[in-house]
């Protein structure tokens, strides 16, 4: 039967339809479910109240991340250190109890594999190409980097997946975002995704599933692809996909929860059929030429407020849309920035290198390359928070921790940390943070905190100069390892 060419998204979707209903809504099977402490307690409570069980506990993996302090968890005497905030402690405790009660695998805060849920999934080989993967967290889009259809869900849906292993969904429209060319000196995957969001806007992807294509994405490591897919949601798209390829297979092979032996061979054979067929149609295509992307950062309180580091704070009056003008004015007031100021003249008090966007080994290497032989500027507090215990261990094996600590950075335990103000790592009101995380919303890093999103190398450059700085001025031109791009 001759069939029309399909996109990667359509293929994954078709493989997971349990039932299609008259109105077009589909009951979609969910292969993988990640659970963390913040969005799950009410779901487990719902199951308990209704006397329901978890349908497929073996397809579910739980790990605490949002609430955990990033200070040591085990004291010198080998005993667990208590968590000071009683509410955080209660939520973490609830996850431990709920997973035990419902028979779900749980990675404890003291295990080497603990980390941010979106770092842990790929790293453990829990995330696989062609699977459907959900988590009660919007940055679940990250897992699309491996070719999984992955998206964030609310707590009612968490409960629905726990009870039924399915979700009721409408098929999304498809958007191809193609990045051609090659990345310039000092330009990282973070700059690419910021450029994309700057182009399509924070709501540009609403209703779409994005597929990232083009030479730049193909040449990118899994770490870099994870950074990009992670921020799909900041452009409004619930999911962002990258077609699986040899890079994907090489990354997954041998991971603890990845298939082995004959299963592995079968899996790879199927994964090779997944990339979009030649001639497959997308509802919308956006193309970017990577040559035009500079190291970038945000100036406002929406991730679409993107500017090159060589640029200036925009004048709100320069926006054609009156609503955007108004939003820009409010943003600049909140950010304490005057129009026309050169971005490089803006001083920072905090630097945060971490979060599920940029806390993997390549991110830490890129930041360490800038920090090496330099000192964190006076008046700056800079912290590095590895995305998982395994990342931390690898970084320590490579000596990155010594570079950071030697330069005056704090080297901390894995968790969401300063990405969101839910644990003790916060930016005080009115202070400014250069952050490798994914959201610059009002109050995201603490009430009144001012956030500039940027790449790990750019964050390190801000730390050692005490201002928003162009990393290209700090690096020898022959070093082009800015994270996530294979040379």
């Amino acid at each position, binding site marked *: 039967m001759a069939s029309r060419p399909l996109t990667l998204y359509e293929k994954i979707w078709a*493989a997971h339809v*349990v*039932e299609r209903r008259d*109105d077009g809504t589909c*009951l979609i*099977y969910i*292969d993988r479910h990640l659970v963390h402490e*913040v*969005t799950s*307690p*009410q779901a487990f409570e719902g199951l308990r109240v*209704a006397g*329901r069980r978890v349908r497929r506990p*073996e397809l579910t*993996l739980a790990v605490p991340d949002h609430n955990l302090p990033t200070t040591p*968890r*085990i004291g010198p005497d080998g005993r667990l250190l208590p968590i000071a905030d009683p*509410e*955080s402690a*209660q939520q973490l405790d609830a996850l431990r109890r709920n997973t035990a009660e419902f028979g779900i*695998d749980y990675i404890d805060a*003291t*295990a*080497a*594999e603990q980390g941010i849920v979106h770092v842990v999934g790929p790293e*453990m080989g829990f995330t*696989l190409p*062609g699977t459907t993967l959900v988590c*009660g*967290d*919007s940055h679940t889009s990250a897992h699309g980097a491996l070719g999984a259809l992955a998206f*964030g*869900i*609310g707590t*009612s849906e968490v409960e*629905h997946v726990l009870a039924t*292993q399915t979700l*009721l969904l*409408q098929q999304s429209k498809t958007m191809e975002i193609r990045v051609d060319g090659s990345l310039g000196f000092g330009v990282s995957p973070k700059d690419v995704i910021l450029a994309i969001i700057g182009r399509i806007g924070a*709501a540009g992807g*609403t209703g779409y599933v994005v597929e990232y294509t083009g030479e730049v994405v193909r040449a990118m490591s899994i770490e870099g692809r994870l950074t990009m897919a992670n921020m799909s949601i900041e452009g*409004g798209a*619930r999911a962002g996909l990258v077609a699986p390829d040899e890079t994907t297979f090489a990354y997954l092979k041998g991971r*603890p929860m990845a*298939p082995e032996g004959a*299963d592995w061979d*079968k*899996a790879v054979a*199927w994964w090779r059929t997944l990339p979009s067929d030649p001639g497959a149609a997308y509802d919308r295509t956006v193309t970017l030429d990577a040559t035009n992307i500079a190291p970038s950062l945000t100036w406002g309180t*929406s991730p679409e407020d993107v500017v090159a580091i060589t640029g200036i704070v925009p004048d709100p009056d320069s926006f054609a849309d009156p609503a*955007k003008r108004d*939003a820009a004015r409010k943003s600049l007031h909140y950010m304490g920035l005057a129009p026309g100021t050169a971005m490089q003249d803006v001083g920072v008090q905090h630097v945060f290198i971490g979060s599920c966007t940029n806390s993997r080994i390549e991110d830490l290497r890129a930041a360490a390359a800038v920090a090496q032989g330099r000192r964190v500027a006076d008046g700056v507090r800079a912290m590095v928070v590895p995305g998982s215990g395994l990342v931390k*261990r690898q970084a320590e094996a490579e000596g990155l921790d010594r570079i950071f600590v030697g330069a005056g950075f704090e080297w901390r335990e894995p968790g969401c940390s300063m990405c*969101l*103000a839910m644990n003790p790592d916060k930016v005080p009101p009115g202070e400014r943070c250069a952050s490798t995380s994914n*959201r610059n*919303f*009002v*109050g*995201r890093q603490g009430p009144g905190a001012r956030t500039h999103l940027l790449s790990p190398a750019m964050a390190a450059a801000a730390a050692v100069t005490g201002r928003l700085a162009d990393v290209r001025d700090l690096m020898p031109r022959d070093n082009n390892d800015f994270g996530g791009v294979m040379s």
Partner: protein
Amino acid sequence: MQAVTSVSGRAYPWGAKNVDTDVIIPAHWLKTISRVGLGRGAFETVRAQPGNLFDDPRYAGAPILIAGDNFGCGSSREHAAWALADMGVTAVIAPSFSDIFSGNAVKNGIVPVVLPQEAIDRLLETAVDQDVTVDLETMTVTTPYQDRFSFDLDPFRRRCLMEGLDEIGLTLARDTQISNFEGAAASTRPWVEGKRGYEGIAVAGAGRT
């Protein structure tokens, strides 16, 4: 879930664009393990400003919120819907919603009403001193000034709202279909069954501080 067929009363005439979930309910309120009581934290940063809309006695207890584009963008936290429900909001009218938020809203008996910007602009004016009615029977938003705007809602979502359906119960009734799917998938994609997980991974606990 409480069934809802129409929502009528005062409406916060806000109109703000890109209202994200951190604005609707800041992260520090997410430490609760219950669904109730979050109304106290709703719009905390907005409420910190004197003369804000949410503390204006004219709109006290309003069941409707009128907002701008991309309402509910940001995180997947259902706490945003719980907070709105807890403060008594049962309909939000905006030109567009984030996908995750509108799903969460429906699951908590909140009607996400999509209307074009012109209609929003008109409602923002009217709502300053007039009631607004959102009706799921007729799929319209009306005001005492003869304004009448029609809106669309996915039929399944509409039914869930109007009948207060338990979606999980409905899906559990499809158990045979789900089991059949699982049986087929186990032979075509056996690797997805995976290994029973995390237990027994050799490096557990090693090298942690």
